[in-house]
């Protein structure tokens, strides 16, 4: 009996040790997929997807609750990268790329309250108290949070104008 107790104890101990080591070595984060997806998202926590931030959005995509096309600032480029990360087929041409927007301030009614500057997730707004605020177009993701806080409705989102540099041939419309 002593031998049996000894053997089983030894066996239990050894296996326990093995499991402990394995748990350390092969440690898996809570959800590696969500983390991977979050790394792809813009990270500006703008909330345009309807989730409280990029992290929550990523969890929703990983759980299959949200489509890969949820992120407006990421556009089709992001949708396509998410689709290939998740290994799903996506007909991107059918995904309407919501026309990219950019915030524009109306000079005559901006009071220089600085609220928009403080809330902008990408620091795209320049200005000082009681001075006209300006938006750096290249840094603006069009998330619209500044528009919400502007007390005078000086700010509004406008579609980004197509220029000769950004224009390209439309997809041919064929019935077949």
């Amino acid at each position: 009996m002593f031998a049996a107790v000894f053997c089983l104890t030894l066996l239990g101990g050894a296996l326990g040790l093995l499991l402990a080591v394995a748990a350390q070595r092969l440690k898996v984060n809570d959800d590696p997929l969500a983390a991977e997806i979050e790394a792809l998202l813009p990270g500006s926590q703008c909330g345009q997807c309807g989730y409280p931030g990029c992290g929550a959005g990523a969890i929703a995509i990983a759980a299959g609750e949200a489509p890969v096309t949820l992120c407006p600032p990421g556009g089709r480029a992001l949708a396509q990268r998410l689709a290939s990360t998740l290994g799903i087929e996506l007909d991107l041409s059918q995904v309407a790329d919501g026309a990219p927007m950019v915030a524009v301030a109306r000079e005559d009614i901006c009071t220089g309250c600085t609220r928009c500057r403080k809330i902008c997730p990408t620091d795209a707004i320049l200005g000082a108290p009681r001075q006209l605020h300006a938006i750096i177009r290249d840094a603006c993701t069009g998330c619209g949070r500044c528009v919400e806080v502007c007390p005078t409705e000086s700010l509004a989102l406008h579609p980004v104008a197509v220029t000769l540099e950004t224009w390209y041939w439309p997809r041919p419309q064929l019935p077949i």
Partner: protein
Amino acid sequence: MRIVHVRGGVRLNGRKRRAERGRITSLPIPAYLNVPLKQHIGAPAEPVVRVGEHVLKGQLLGRPPGPMSAPVHAPTSGRVIAIGAAPAPHPSGLDTPTITVQSDGEEQWIELAPPIDPLALDAAAIEERIADAGVVGLGGAAFPAAVKLRLRTRHPIHTLIVNGAECEPYLTCDDRLMQERAEEIIDGVRIMLRALEQDRSGPSIRALIAIENNKGDALAALKKAASAHPGIATIAVPTRYPMGSEKHLIRAVTGKEVPARALAPEIGVLVHNVGTAFAIHRALRFGKPLISRIVTLSGGAVASPQNFEVLIGTPVSALLRAAGGLRQPPARLLMGGPMMGAMLPHAEVPIVKGTSGILALTSAEIAARPAAPCIRCGTCVAVCPCGLVPVEMVSQIRGGRLEGALRFGLLDCVGCGTCAYSCPSRIPLLQYLNFAKGELTARERTKHKAEEARRLAERRRLRLAQQAEARAATATARPRQQHRHPEGSEATGAPDRTTNPQVAA
């Protein structure tokens, strides 16, 4: 010299006869000229004149902001009446920054630099003068000529190919130029050779002037002009579209293949158009900037097709009027050749440095038919000069799988349109390919912007965290002062004014 066979391509009906006979004629000076600030690959020039200012012919209007750009000059003397947006010669019909000059009809030149012997200059001085004269590739791509020549510092060049192939139907501007100004072209070639040969030991560089064998007179004229110069030879290449494409011309003439997505200088070859050689001759011998070019006006709707020497900035409508107008309203107005040219939205757009021709085509010439389903005949595969499989690329694009098209070599497509021209089902293959290339570039741009937004957001997060920490430190140092910023209000909390870099800036 042996000509290497190039795969694919098509024999096109040249339709050159109507315009090729008459001599190059100068156009009367139009009432106003629209000079776009960007007529080249690279950054637009920056205006150096003001509205209302009087300018002389050849005076600098726009200065290049960096090395990858080109200046623009006043095509005639007159008054600057506007600096702003005007329609670009582009299928989109969008505007482009433009300087409008109202001509005074005096044609008063600026003081030109005294003539010097360009062959006695060193390479850097030659390149500087070419750059200052605003010379860009006149074959159509409008790549700044000096930038191209400077590639010699990065890659050893052994062959200069002067492109006189002119493979597009209708166009005869290079043909006429070669017939009438052969000596000047050879002089331009010698100047380029001089720049390329500088501080080079070893065998000298050869210059080959390649001309399609349907242009006998041009070939003879250049052969005669080149006979006095042992380093320069003419060579007849088969008449087969797209022979004038840089990669295919190099393959035909030297037998070498430019690797996918590589530049020709990487294999020691530089290609310049004959028109560019002529512009270089003018710039170096006479100090004259590039303010005019030869333009073919042709097409079934044009009353009398001909080649004109046109001032840059001349409205297309003025060219049409001066040439005796149209026989009938054109079904399509094109800038450039019928294969690769740009459809014009209307005639109120200017002639630019890259304009080789204006074509007013009738509906009979376009012969548009609605597209039919693909019959998988394989014609497009057989004719593609780049060895691609257009039918597969397009079926991937139609299915929305642009990555698939990339795997089939979309980026190696030179957009020559041979596939679309040859397709018996008239599927707009080229437009699908162009759409896919544009869409991929746009996605790349969005991706870049998203990455930038991410970086900015991260920087802001760090800054807010630092500020919160600093406040916490002050709060513990002076425990009686109330901490006004509760936890969790970071995103909306006011950053400390004195440490906010935006206020400090």
